[in-house]
């Protein structure tokens, strides 16, 4: 979820809670405000009625609400003495402009007592009140409207403000995404006055500088390690070669020397493969150019032609389309030739190897052992099936490493008794 939507999510949830609470509080406050204002009106009426009753005693005869908004009853003195003004909410039949016939409507009633010419009277005055269900309904709609209005407002504001505020961040992020250690010359950089972004930029820059330093060290280390290992290997190889060349060796001694020489050769190849693998994983090859996989496949087939015919394996290439990809030439040659070499070597007499180049992929299909390899493990380093002897166990790991670096997929399948390796160059 994007930051923008995240903030909208949190805002709308918290606004919903705040507005709901606010609506409840507001409703009760308003209700009590209405009541106190109605009560003041009633109090005012009371004074007027009492005042008018002094001049007009007919008022004292009004016993029901039929004729007006008040009633007057005579009461005993003791009762009157104990009387206190009471405001109550009650219901009464009334007919408003919007009613067809009288209905029960909420009213506010003040009950009080007064004295007139030594007599005591109880006075009840009513005033119509707001209808609470109407009020609630009205409030609900208003609240919903307010909520929607606020949310829409926030979305709009968010879009404008946040987008503007976060722009340096997104710029920085996109630069960072395309940054490649050891390959990009310029560090990601944006101009901003926001402190947080400047802090982030500084932290990332520090981290990158540190990574670049370790990367350089590692590169240097690989170079040195290669130097340190290759030289002794060269000395050992050459010494043994010269020793054999000298002659005067017993057959048995020569045999031992030849075995040692072969072991050294294995070491040489292992060292080379490991160095290559490390170099690939450090992305030290990125001399990308547009190359034709068809050409590379043809070249690889040509290189292996004699070997294949010696092994009585037929090598064929089917070009369904011209496949061009942007990659390092030597790495492309390595992936194709590693797969092809495996296909030829792990084959049986009179077997076949078919290379199919199509628009997006290259498939290498070969006969061989009549049961599938472990599709999961086949690409791991030093994996060797029980039948494979003498290989370094790194050939396919190198293929995999190259493919992952470029984001290509490489899969193994066993179909119709044939082993099939496929590299998808485009997803």
């Amino acid at each position, binding site marked *: 979820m994007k930051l923008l939507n995240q903030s909208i999510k949190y805002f709308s949830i918290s606004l919903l809670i705040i507005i709901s609470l606010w609506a409840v509080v507001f409703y009760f406050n308003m209700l009590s405000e209405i009541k106190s204002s109605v009560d003041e009106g009633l109090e005012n009426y009371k004074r007027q009625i009492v005042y008018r009753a002094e001049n007009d005693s007919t008022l004292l005869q009004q016993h029901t609400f039929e004729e007006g908004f008040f009633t007057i009853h005579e009461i005993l003195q003791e009762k009157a003495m104990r009387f206190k003004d009471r405001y109550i909410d009650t219901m009464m039949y009334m007919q408003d402009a919007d009613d067809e016939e009288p209905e029960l409507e909420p009213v506010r009633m003040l009950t009080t007592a007064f004295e007139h010419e030594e007599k005591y009277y109880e006075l009840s005055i009513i005033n119509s009140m707001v209808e609470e269900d109407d009020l609630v309904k009205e409030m609900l709609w208003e609240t919903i409207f307010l909520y929607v209005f606020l949310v829409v407002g926030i979305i709009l504001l968010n879009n404008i403000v946040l987008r503007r505020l976060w722009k340096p961040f997104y710029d920085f992020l996109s630069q960072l995404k395309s940054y490649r250690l050891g390959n990009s010359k310029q560090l990601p950089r944006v101009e901003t006055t926001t402190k947080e972004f400047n802090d982030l930029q500084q932290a990332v820059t520090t981290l990158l500088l540190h990574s670049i330093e370790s990367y350089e060290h590692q590169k240097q280390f690989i170079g040195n390690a*290669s130097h340190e290992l290759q*030289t002794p290997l060269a*000395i050992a190889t050459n010494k043994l070669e*010269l020793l054999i*060349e000298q002659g005067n060796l017993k057959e048995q001694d020569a045999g031992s020397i030849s075995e040692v020489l072969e072991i050294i050769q294995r070491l040489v190849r292992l060292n080379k493969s490991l160095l290559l693998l490390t170099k690939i994983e450090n992305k030290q090859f990125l001399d990308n150019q547009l190359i034709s996989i068809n050409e590379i496949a043809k070249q690889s087939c040509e290189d292996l032609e004699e070997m294949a015919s*010696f*092994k009585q394996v037929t090598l064929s290439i089917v070009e369904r389309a011209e496949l061009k990809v942007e990659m390092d030439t030597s790495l492309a040659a390595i992936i194709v030739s590693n797969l092809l070499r495996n296909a030829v070597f792990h084959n049986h007499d009179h077997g076949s190897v078919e290379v199919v180049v199509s628009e997006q992929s290259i498939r290498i299909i070969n006969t061989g052992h009549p049961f599938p390899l472990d599709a999961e493990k086949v690409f791991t380093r030093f994996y060797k099936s029980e039948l494979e002897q003498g290989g*370094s166990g790194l050939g396919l790991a190198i293929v995999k490493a190259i493919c992952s670096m470029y984001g290509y997929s490489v899969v193994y399948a066993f179909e119709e008794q044939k082993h099939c390796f496929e590299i998808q160059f485009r997803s």
Partner: protein
Amino acid sequence: MKILVVEDEKELLKNIVDSLTKEHFVIESAVDFRSASDKIGLYDYDCILLDIMLPGGNGLELLEQLKQSGKADNVIIISAKDSLDDKLKGLELGADDYLTKPFHIAELNARVKAVLRRNKQDGKNTIELGNAVLDLQDRLFLVNGEPVPLNRKEFDILNYFLFNKNRLVTKTALAEHVWGDNIDQADNFDFIYYQIKNLRKKLTDSNSELEIEAVYGIGYKLVEK
């Protein structure tokens, strides 16, 4: 033929010098940047084997020095670094070849011979041995003046053997030279045996005076009968 070997690793230097001495070359050696620089300044060499990582400086600087005096075209860089950058830089500076450690004696021999041959002034690009002639330019093999048909790989093998006349060529060195490196499968050796068998047959059938001898089952040697 005078060759300068610039290599700081004494044992490796000794191997190279031993091997090249067998070819009757005059060898001089330098083990650090300064002495190498001095020698390059003072003498002319037919071929210089140059290590890149040297005590006291970088071999590429020596190459630059050679280039300035127009003598860079007979340099073979020997480096433990199989780095494309170095290779390109070296070749750009005019080096003739780039050999990555570890290498086989036979390979070094062949490369040195190739450099000497390329820089030879007589313009003839053939190797002669006994009654046989290998024409590198037209890729022809002649015995007693008669052409003997060889396929591409057989020609390469014979060429390699002729550069290493009377010297041991191990099966691994041969496989790497002719079929590229990384061929590490065991049945590879049967394949080489098969190729050699074919080549021997052609050599015998054409009555050439060349013979490929097996050496302790580890490699071969081309000799004149």
